[in-house]
């Protein structure tokens, strides 16, 4: 608990302090921000911010406690909206947050592989072959084992090199489980 608190304050400090060196025109372009995921079933980013009333029930029902909330570091318009940092705690696709959300900002989606693959679009995993152990000839396969949609969202080669498929919903369990630091597989969110 203490360490977590410490880390959070540090991360917030990192983002608020990060500033680009370049000229005025490049300031907005180089504005540092987080890579974060919205909870599964979330609407498109602008619509999500308009719909979400910041009640926090998604996080309260999350059995995995992976949903956290923005302060002011991501801009005032996303203040107190929910997000997931897959590296710290990834989504287990239980779909409870969609049922808890009163506003429909997070859609209610039935918990079955078919509907999840079809409707959940948090992001898509990407493998960094320079970092991935399996691509360096050291068979690892941890991400493949962590994936809730094995062989649908992720397949492996003969040395367990991961290949991300179209069906990947971006839950982030692979990123969470990756034993490399920096992680060799990470979710590229859908909004960016």
């Amino acid at each position, binding site marked *: 608990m*203490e360490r*977590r608190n410490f880390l959070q304050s540090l991360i917030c400090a990192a983002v608020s302090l990060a500033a680009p060196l370049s000229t005025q025109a490049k300031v907005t372009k180089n504005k540092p921000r987080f890579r974060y995921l919205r909870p599964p079933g979330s609407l498109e980013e602008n619509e999500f911010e308009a719909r979400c*009333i910041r009640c926090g*029930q998604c996080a309260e029902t999350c059995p*995995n406690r992976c949903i956290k909330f923005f302060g002011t570091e991501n801009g*005032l318009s996303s203040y107190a909206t929910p997000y997931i940092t897959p590296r710290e705690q990834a989504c287990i696709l239980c779909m409870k947050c969609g049922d808890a959300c*009163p506003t429909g900002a997070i859609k209610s989606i039935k918990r079955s592989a078919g509907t999840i693959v079809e409707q959940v679009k948090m992001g898509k995993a990407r493998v960094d072959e320079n970092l991935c152990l399996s691509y360096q000839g050291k068979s690892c396969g941890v991400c493949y084992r962590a994936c809730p949609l094995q062989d649908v969202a992720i397949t492996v080669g003969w040395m367990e090199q991961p290949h991300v498929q179209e069906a990947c919903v971006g839950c982030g369990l692979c990123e969470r489980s990756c034993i490399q630091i920096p992680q060799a597989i990470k979710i590229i969110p859908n909004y960016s």
Partner: protein
Amino acid sequence: MTSIQKHLNKLRWISLSLVFIILILLPCLSVYQSFVAAHAYDLLSPSEKSFYEIMEWLTPFVSDPENELDMIKGTTWSASFFGIKLTDPLAIIGQLAAGLQIYWPFIMTGLIPVTLTIIFGRFFCGWICPATFLYELNTNLGVWLHSANLPIGKQHFDRRIKYLVLFFGLILSFFTGSVLVAAIYPPAIIGREIYYAIALGGFGVGSVFFILTLLFDLFVARRGFCRYFCPGGAVYSLLGRYRVFRINRNVSSCNDCKKCTAICEFELDPMRDNFGQECNNCSACIAICPTDALKFTMNCKDIASQGPGHLGHQYSEKNH
């Protein structure tokens, strides 16, 4: 009848405390649920283990905490209660302003609070709001400071400022496309911050804002934020304008002692029949009245000023 009404203020304090305790308990239960869901008991630290055991002890009739405790979730801002979803009217108005979209399942969640407000007026502000709980304790702190001859705030502003805050809050919500009223509404802030502190390991920026409102109440204007700035209070005032239950003064048993006027958190003037839409039916004036002149009645309008109480000096001097 009057004797029961005398105790309403105590009942109100019980209600406020209960809401606050629930607001602390729900995040704790949520953390407990996540421990249960992970079958993590053996992996917990000693302090977490005792936390787990306390939570287990607090929920004796729950056999499947992971799912059964989902029955009650949320805060006073928006909650789900045994399948019934309830939402603060301000959240609904704010969301309509931000997205200009009507999503009926959500709007219907405001039906019960709005109906109750039309009948009971600003009862949310007086009986439920977790910020009211702290603000009233803060008022008492102010009284204590005052009795120690320390300066406290006695400023007055126009009560209608809160309608402007509501209006501009909604305009800003519209232009930013984001429900910004949620960021400055104390009960929503408190619900959130308690969750952050318990489940996410630290208070957020909302706490800073809330502390500032406490200081404002203490050193600028008594209950200033609620009376002059709260956008939710503005919504409830408008909705509760023609409330059915309201406090009236029975002029024949009033003795002009002014205790009701002094005790009123919102500095309304029950002794002059001056309640208006700001009264949050808190019943503190009923409890303090020595002659039982004040009581709840069913009446859609305040009685016009009835002049001095019949047991007071002014009235007797006039008539003799």
